[in-house]
């Protein structure tokens, strides 16, 4: 892998490499949120909270416990999943926007906790994290995550996630323990967030509580909804678009966020179900390879 990174840095300049690393990390994170919110339909607006748990845990494991990189990553992801379990419990009783509020509150509490967390350097942040995350590491993990995501969503568990989103009562009548699966979906989402957080920490080598604020959670939510809720290619596309957009909008300098905000509104007006939200491979095949001739207005 080192050879591959060395080769890449020969041919691709650091700026593009950096953007592609960020895209990889964001894909892992967004796919996590996609499972919780896109597939299972449990609106989570505190994804950055899980990310920060993963980032801090992994960083501290690396710095203070001297764990190898993979160990720290796994540790961070597991810790995040543990909190996902804790946060999933209130879903026993709450739904919709109350749940959204709980997740916002949770993420804020985590942020405030890290602002007061002595070993994390408080507001100054935690620096000196060893740099382990490289392009090939990120994309190797991202590809594994994508493959496992596809497998999961096509399995019995994945189908019941979708079923819960579509109709909870009917799902229960089909023998699905919705409570348990909702908690599971929170845990899976949090696990991936923690994993992404760990990668992020070992890439930036510096993390601070401000990195994981409310707007960060919103960014991930944007990626999932913009791409198309519950669709893996959609989420990936949404992530790519929304990670690139700010970079491409750099030319408009301080008007950048103005464009970004307007872009969200316009995209939602023209593609309310997200870019790929209602696109299936099956339909593409049917449309593009069907022999029957259709008129335009049919």
């Amino acid at each position: 892998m080192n050879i591959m990174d060395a080769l890449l840095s020969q041919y691709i300049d650091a700026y593009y490499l950096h953007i592609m690393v960020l895209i990889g990390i964001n894909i892992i994170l967004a796919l996590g949120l996609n499972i919780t919110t896109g597939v299972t339909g449990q609106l989570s607006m505190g994804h950055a909270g899980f990310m920060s748990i993963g980032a801090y845990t992994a960083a501290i494991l690396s710095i203070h416990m001297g764990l190898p990189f993979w160990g720290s990553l796994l540790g961070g992801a597991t810790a995040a999943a543990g909190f996902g379990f804790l946060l999933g419990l209130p879903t026993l009783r709450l739904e919709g926007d109350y749940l959204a509020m709980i997740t916002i509150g949770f993420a804020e509490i985590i942020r405030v906790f890290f602002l007061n967390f002595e070993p994390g350097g408080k507001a100054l942040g935690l620096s000196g994290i060893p740099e382990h995350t490289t392009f090939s590491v990120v994309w190797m993990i991202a590809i594994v995550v994508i493959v496992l995501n596809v497998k999961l969503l096509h399995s019995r568990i994945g189908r019941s996630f979708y079923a819960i989103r579509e109709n909870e009562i009917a799902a229960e009548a089909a023998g699905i323990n919705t409570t348990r699966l909702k908690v599971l979906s929170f845990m899976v989402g949090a696990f991936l967030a923690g994993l992404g957080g760990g990668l992020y920490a070992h890439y930036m080598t510096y993390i601070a509580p401000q990195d994981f604020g409310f707007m960060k959670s919103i960014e991930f939510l944007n990626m999932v909804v913009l791409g198309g809720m519950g669709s893996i290619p959609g989420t990936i596309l949404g992530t790519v678009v929304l990670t690139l957009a700010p970079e491409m909008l750099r030319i408009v300098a301080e008007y950048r966020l103005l464009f970004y905000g307007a872009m969200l509104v316009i995209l939602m007006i023209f593609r309310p179900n997200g870019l790929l939200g209602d696109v299936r491979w099956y339909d593409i095949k049917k449309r593009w390879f069907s022999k029957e001739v259709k008129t335009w207005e049919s």
Partner: protein
Amino acid sequence: MSSKLKFRLALVLCCVMMMSIFAGCGGEKSDVDDQSIQASGEVIKLGFLGALTGSVANYGIPGKKGMEMAIEEINANGGILRHQVEGVYDDNKGDNSEISAIARKYITRDKVVAMVGDPCTGLTQVAGKIAQENEVVILSAGATSPGVVEIGDYVFRNTLLDKFAAPAVVDWMINDKGWTDFAVITCMDLGYSTGLTPVFEEAIEANGGNIVLEDSINQGETDFTAQVTKLKNAGADVLVFTGYYTEAALIMNEVQKQNFDMVLVGGDGLYGPDLAALGQSAVEEKVIFYCGFSSDQPSDETAAFLEAYRAKYNEEPDMFSAQYYDAVYILKKVMEDANSVDPKVFKNELAKLTDYPGVSGNTTIGPDREPIKSPVCLITIKDGQFAILEKIPVNVE
């Protein structure tokens, strides 16, 4: 539009987007190795690090103005070693991953020889690491906490270090003013503040003062009623506030509303024209802070700077504009001393900088490559203007 047409349109759009990404990636990658600027042309570039939007833009925007002005002046006077200078200004929003992208972009795309900024320590650390790896000089105009120049020999800063200034001020408060009971308010989500608070507290304890109240606020909040009510009942002689000027002014406003007398002492983060504009009568002679830069009783260099800045922007400069301005001139000086615009060469000159008479005080880069700025000015506000209260020499040992 039929659904089919719409659908195809969407697909085509997606494809175009994907293509543009890969086209971008594949494009200009040829001359990465060519780090030497002389070969590529006359213009040398300096990268600006700072936020132009977002909640810390207050510190980036004046910095950018200072830097722009310095570059304009230099170009009008023949540039650096006959090269014209160009500033590159990208907005990092005060965000970690943004600054990391920007630093890489500056180095690889814009091929800057040096970066100026960022005002925040944490962000400077991120950019510093990238600068070090790519052998580009970074000169921070604001990072005051430890862990910056330790990154490597390409990383510098020109700020008044808290560890020198704060003890001098505490000494002044206890021994000259006779204040013994201190209240300390920290801005919890500001690295500058959480770094400065312990420096003050250690100095207070070392000088035999008492801390009667420790409290905190967050940036961007406006409601400090609860903290001020506590302060009112705490019986402190003076309030030490380690945050930035906006919140300081709002705290003093609330003090005035709650009808009691309290002096606020703080660090150079309080140096901003907004302090007086926001606080008005509430801060008048009630706020004292230390700083390396003073617009009152200016040195010759400072006077010229003040005049030019007021003429150009029609507003008062603050510490950040002064330090960014200085940083550009320091870079000019060391490049000329080294007779080279190659960062590998002029970084050695920068490490030897002695007694540079900048507008933000005299700067010397010490043997540990940390800046020493002297003297420290104690500044207060009189008639809505910054007025110098006292000059304290800094004891470096």
